[in-house]
């Protein structure tokens, strides 16, 4: 409730400010709005997706120059050049994104600085861009014949666009795509295994941030009616990033906080520092630098969390609305050969982790994959799920080869997994984590999410997630942050998330580790029920008691090779297995 009141107060403030404030402050607010747009893009790119760009000013500049050239030299309407500017920005961003986003994060950051410098000198030296003196007399935007030729008049355009962008970004984060974006930072492997194409998603986020910067550039050119390279130097890009970090790089409203704070602080410091030092120059960068270091020493979340604590969260989280069930996949008839592993090999340097391993998995059975520590079980698991690529051999699923496919493609074929080391996004609720498992069962993308056109599907996804959470017995914890649950419960959340993907084949990596006796029994009961419904399960497990009573067949691994295969009671009497496990059977 208080959140709503604050939002309304903020909107009222923005709406009334230019009516009472002198022109200097209106101009300052315009700059804040323009900076908010750029740092909002960085909030998504840096704070949420974990990709740092120091080159956003280049995108601002590209759009600003495009519109300035087209409107001054070709007398084009600013409304047409808006699209031209965004198109140029998008084309450049797409190219740069595609070539850098597959590489480790610091490549992106370094190359953002590089192209920022490259474009700055390009702007400053091209004849038709007016070189270092820039382009003046850029026409103002006209709206229904009403020319926005003063700071006051531009104000409403700038802030309407900014507010719309803020709301759209907030909508985006609270959606199917948003959950996937939030997984990019630390959980790419997990996101891939639920079908998120992380490489292309990163490009999308990068493109989005660039377009926001482009939008800011277009507004800038027509508000200031002048463009010159100085506004798009490297320092502008650093300032934008600092704004996002100061505000709180993972929260949409942090963009407003950071942009306001740094814009005002800069204005103030530019005024007092040269007087203090008795010579002119941009000394504010000293203060900015020192403040950033101090801030990062104390917190990496910026100021927004501290501000957010002033607004208490809603007491009762909204209940998950009932929604029509999602379509389900057909399951293959029981007893059919579903997964074939043929002579799979995996080496890590000189270490042979999996060597010539072959086994079959038939639909509707639970197969246990056991073996002492270091036997290669988890490696085998990673080969099936595409996290690792086999050096030799074949893995087929329903006759199709899996061993050359990416994780996200394997997930599309109905293979869902859990992780031995719990792989949840700890800051997200249990519900959202599990809903990420249902990612492939939704279709709506980023644009629909920003415009809230995907609410029906979103309700279905959340209802499905809630149903699976209920099913594994965590209905009480629906809205808790996943990281706040005990480890055993987090494993159960992993299972719910895999189930939300409507798997044909469920791969469980040590699901019973850390569970108490009663919880293990409940889990065994659940797995039996799933088998009865026709699901096929591959189980890697240490807990013999749990495995023996549950599985149909066992494959025993040791030193990367298959030691034995058979029914549980045969395995229990197998001399080779006993030898390998000497003292190991609990």
């Amino acid at each position, binding site marked *: 409730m208080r959140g709503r009141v604050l939002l309304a107060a903020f909107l009222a403030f923005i709406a009334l400010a230019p009516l009472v404030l002198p022109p200097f402050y209106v101009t300052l607010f315009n700059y804040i709005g323009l900076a908010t747009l750029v740092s909002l893009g960085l909030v998504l790119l840096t704070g949420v997706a974990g*990709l*740092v760009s120091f080159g956003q000013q280049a995108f601002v500049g590209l759009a600003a120059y495009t519109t300035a050239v087209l409107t001054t030299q070709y007398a084009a309407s600013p409304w047409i050049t808006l699209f031209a500017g965004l198109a140029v920005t998008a084309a450049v961003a797409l190219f740069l994104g595609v070539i850098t986003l597959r590489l480790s994060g610091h*490549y992106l950051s*370094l190359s953002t600085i590089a192209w920022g410098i*490259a474009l700055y000198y390009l702007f400053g030296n091209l004849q038709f861009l007016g070189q270092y003196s820039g382009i003046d007399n850029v026409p103002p935007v006209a709206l229904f014949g009403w020319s926005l030729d003063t700071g006051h008049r531009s104000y409403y355009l700038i802030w309407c666009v900014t507010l719309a962008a803020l709301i759209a970004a907030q909508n985006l984060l609270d959606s199917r795509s948003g959950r996937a974006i939030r997984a990019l930072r630390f959980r790419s492997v997990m996101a891939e295994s639920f079908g998120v194409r992380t*490489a292309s998603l990163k490009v999308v986020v990068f493109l989005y941030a660039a377009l926001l910067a482009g939008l800011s550039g277009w507004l800038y050119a027509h508000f200031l009616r002048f463009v010159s390279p100085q506004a798009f130097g490297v320092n502008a890009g650093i300032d934008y990033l600092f704004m996002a970090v100061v505000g709180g790089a993972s929260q949409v409203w942090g963009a407003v906080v950071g942009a306001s704070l740094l814009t005002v602080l800069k204005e103030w410091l530019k005024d007092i520092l040269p007087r203090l030092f008795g010579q002119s120059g941009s000394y504010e960068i000293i203060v900015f*630098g020192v403040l950033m270091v101090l801030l990062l020493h104390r917190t990496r979340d910026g100021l927004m969390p501290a501000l957010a604590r002033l607004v208490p969260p809603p007491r009762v989280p909204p209940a998950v609305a009932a929604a029509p069930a999602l379509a389900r996949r057909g399951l293959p008839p029981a007893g059919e050969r579903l997964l074939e592993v043929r002579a799979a090999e995996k080496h890590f340097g000189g270490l042979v982790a999996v060597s010539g391993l072959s086994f079959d998995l038939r639909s509707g059975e639970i197969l246990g994959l056991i073996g002492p520590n270091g036997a290669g079980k988890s490696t085998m698991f990673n080969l099936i799920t595409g*996290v690792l690529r086999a050096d030799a051999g074949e893995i087929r699923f329903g006759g199709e080869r899996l061993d050359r496919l990416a*994780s996200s493609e394997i997930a599309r074929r109905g293979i869902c997994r859990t992780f031995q080391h719990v792989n949840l996004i700890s800051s997200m609720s249990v519900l959202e984590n599990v809903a990420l498992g249902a990612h492939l069962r939704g279709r709506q993308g980023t644009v629909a999410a920003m415009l809230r056109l995907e609410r029906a599907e979103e309700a279905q996804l959340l209802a499905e997630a809630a149903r699976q959470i209920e099913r594994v017995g965590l209905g009480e914890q629906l809205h808790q942050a996943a990281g706040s649950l005990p480890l055993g419960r987090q494993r159960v959340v992993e299972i719910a998330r895999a189930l939300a993907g409507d798997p044909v084949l469920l791969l469980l990596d040590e699901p019973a580790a850390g569970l108490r006796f009663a919880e293990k029994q409940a889990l065994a009961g659940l797995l039996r029920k799933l088998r009865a419904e026709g699901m096929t399960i591959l189980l890697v497990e240490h807990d013999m008691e749990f495995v023996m009573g549950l599985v149909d067949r066992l494959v025993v691994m040791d030193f990367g090779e298959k030691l034995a295969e058979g029914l549980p009671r045969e395995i229990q009497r197998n001399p080779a297995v006993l030898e390998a496990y000497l003292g190991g059977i609990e």
Partner: protein
Amino acid sequence: MNLDTVLWLVQDGISNGAIYALLALALLLVFAVTRVIFVPQGEFIAYAALSLTMLQAGQLPGTVYVLVGGGLLAAAYEIAAALRARAGARLPRVLAFYVLLPAAIAVLAWWAAPRKFDLWVQALIVLGLVVPLGPILYRIAYQPLANASVVVLFIVSMAVHYALTGLGLLFFGGEGLRSAAFSDAQFKLGVVNVTAQSVLVVLASVLVMLALWLFFTRSLYGKALRATAVNRVGARLVGIPAELSGSLSFLLAAFIGAVSGVLVAPIATIYYDTGFLIGLKGFVGAILGGMASYPLAALGALAVGLLESFSSFWASAFKETIVFTAIIPVLVWRSLTSRHVEDEEE
């Protein structure tokens, strides 16, 4: 374009490239050991070059204030940490390194400045002024964040770059300065006119690289740094303190930065913010070399020097644009050949 021009450009490119190669090595070293993308390396270059020029003019370089102030700040951090850990025994060493040493160098510089010693003596004083800045910076800005992600450390680097650039403006002013050459001699090597200055640059770079190679292969500290670069946790487990390797790698980076600054001061007019661009060209070289191998990085940096010198002949206005766009083909190639998804540490 005749052969003379080509050879002259090659000579120019090689002497610039040698400096970029030094920088690329330092950046790779710091990155491998501490995961810090050390952008402020560029400021060491500017500080060293400008300090040298000021000493030549008989003035006290502003670097002394940064050095003494930074040292005091680092000492304050250390004292606070020592009080918290109740480890007062290490205080004398801390005070000696962070307070006494900077103060001694500052006094030396103050004494030497008006006496206008020989250029070589002044260069040594400059090294004394700039090199301790490395460990001091590490202590103040980076050590408290030793476990942060690459991305956070990168942002810190940009913040430190900001602070140092601003301080540079404050203490050196906005004017560009160029120092006198170590030698004005020229001699003919076959058909080429070679300046002694460029020979000196190349020689000094090769010497520093050789010294680094000896340090890393022969000395215990060098081996400790290599161990840390290969496996940070493992190195800690065998008793190599992370703070030591961090501090040491920053010391080497500052040394290389200071040497580059001294070498570049007579070749180019240096402003308080020129170091940033020079340092980044070292990064471009390192990226061209794939950010992993030292020899490849040095070759990449040499390529940057040549590219720069030829593009300043053909299209001098677009020199920087060309140099900084050179990473694009490399990034394209690398992104086509790399196929992996990895999770960053939290």
